[in-house]
């Protein structure tokens, strides 16, 4: 190894240096926006509104995080987002595992037909407006269930589970069957433990998807009680001026005259952004672990 290093030509050294430089810059570009939001949300609000905070946090304080909960609708939006993420991803995961298992059974009645019936929906879509009208006529507009029901059956996840089950030996299932175990029992006691790794992958992807979802609120919700955090953030950013008065009314008396802590539109949108980002940063290490696995299994089929 050291011998190789010895022989490296100046051109190769230059290339390596430029390459390292390139990736330092790229990584910086990807990370800095996150860092920028975080340091601004904990710095003095008058400084961050003036654009003075960009390298290190100045006059650190955490009152923003306490005060945004006083904002009209934010607490509710947080609840809605958490509820849809937990319920929605639990349903998707269980349904994907179950359907993946059912479709892996050769004796499923008209298996090919029904499997195609499900998988083909990945490739066509009636279009935004017909889908919207359909939700409307099903009574799912302004209904929390619109966050959950359409996402339950996810063809891609079903393919992942089915492929995974098919790569495991059949003998365990057969042994259990001979012992008299029914379909549900085999699913719960034999299949579920085996497919845990792929379940973890799906869980992580589904929950990130639910948490980040924006378009369904935009399309189907006019009742502000059902707004999600993402949607509320979008409204905050776009209604900065209206918000400023709203905040000053809701601000507690002790900070009303304190410019450093008094919330302004900039500090509100940045603090809410950080609240939206934090859970993602939190599950990110798990994401990292399961990403490649998920992609690779998906790629076999793709």
């Amino acid at each position, binding site marked *: 190894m050291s011998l190789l290093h010895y022989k490296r030509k100046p051109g190769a050294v230059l290339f390596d240096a430029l390459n390292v430089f390139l990736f330092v810059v790229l990584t910086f570009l*990807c990370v800095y926006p996150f860092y920028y939001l975080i340091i601004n949300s904990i710095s003095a609000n008058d400084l961050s*509104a003036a654009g003075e905070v960009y390298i290190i946090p100045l006059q650190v304080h955490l009152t923003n995080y306490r005060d945004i909960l006083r904002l009209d609708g934010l607490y509710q939006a947080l609840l809605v987002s958490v509820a849809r993420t937990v319920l929605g991803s639990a349903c998707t995961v269980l349904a994907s595992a179950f359907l993946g298992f059912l479709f892996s059974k050769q004796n499923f009645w008209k298996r090919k037909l029904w499997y195609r019936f499900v998988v083909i*929906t990945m490739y066509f879509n009636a279009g935004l407006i017909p889908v*919207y009208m359909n939700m409307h006529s099903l009574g799912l507009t302004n209904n929390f269930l619109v966050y959950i029901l359409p996402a339950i059956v996810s063809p891609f996840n079903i393919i992942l589970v089915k492929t995974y089950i098919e790569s495991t030996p059949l003998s365990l299932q057969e042994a259990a069957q001979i012992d008299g175990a029914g379909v549900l029992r085999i699913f719960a006691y034999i299949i579920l433990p085996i497919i845990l790794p792929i379940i973890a992958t799906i869980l992580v992807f589904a929950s990130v998807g639910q948490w980040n979802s924006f378009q369904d609120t935009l399309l189907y919700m006019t009742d502000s009680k059902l707004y999600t955090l993402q949607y509320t953030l979008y409204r905050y950013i776009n209604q900065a001026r209206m918000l400023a008065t709203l905040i000053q009314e809701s601000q507690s008396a002790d900070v009303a005259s304190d410019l450093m802590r008094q919330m302004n539109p900039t500090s509100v949108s940045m603090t809410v952004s950080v609240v939206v980002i934090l859970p993602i940063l939190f599950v990110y290490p798990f994401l990292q672990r399961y990403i490649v696995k998920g992609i690779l299994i998906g790629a076999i089929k793709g």
Partner: protein
Amino acid sequence: MRASTKAGAIPSRRRLTSPQREGYVLFALALPFLALVFLFSYLPLWGWRYALYDYLPGFKLENCEFVGLKWFQFLVSNKTQVDEILRVLRNTFAISGLNLLTSVLPIAFAVLLNELRSDRMKRVVQTLTTLPHFIGWVLIYSMAYAIFSYNTGVFNKALLALNILDTPVNWLASGEHIWLKMCAWSVWKNIGWNAIMYLAAMAGIDQELYEAATVDGAGRFRKIWHITIPGLMPTFFVLLMMAVANFLNSGMEQYYVFQNALNQKSIEVLDLYVYNIGIGNGTIPLATVVSMLKSIVSLTLLFIVNGLSKLTRGETII
């Protein structure tokens, strides 16, 4: 099966759970989910009938006049409408086209990342550059708003301090270069993520090829050019085909959050246009017509691309 016929007591029990009978049970268990698929993926097709009526939001469809193909003709009948469609198509083609062109960047990213000498740095870079893929467009808009805003954003501040600008520029509001800007955000969000796919493909390349090339005296760049890049082509081809099939499906979320009065003319892609005329203006029939045509063209594209893939690679992509 053979075992069950051999043993005397078992057959009656076995008949109860015969494979065929079990097959019906399996189907019955899946039925509720199949119903959901029907409700949310097939039933909307029935909504295509709105294209044939003078439908107004709030009315019952039965009370609206059946007008046949009026809205289809309307789409191409008057000059303003044709210009509108052409403008939206131009935006869609420009933005999707730029995204297609930049789809080679993740390959470059993966190849160069693989050339980094420190494994630790590789891992760190890969972890951090994937991060943007996992946040939604609203958050990206929020970041853009914070960093590029007119008088408080760090971007203007930095450019002013470096004397590149004399006066701050309102980057987000202006409609200039909006196609490039949108493409840049897409690249920022997805480059690290898409590179993972190529890194995985790279790990699958036979190491002996590299060893043989080294023996033959090939340098680093020759190995990249003659071994790595060809090794990545199958993956690239599949992704490219999918991108072509989705040429019209640019989605609306990104463009919706970045849209404003100044840039609307050049940011409105097909999906956003459908939303704006359908949900925004309530012109449901016209929006349905555009939705329909888009779905049909997309499906046709998918079949063409799939056929092409079958011809050239002997493998389908769907």
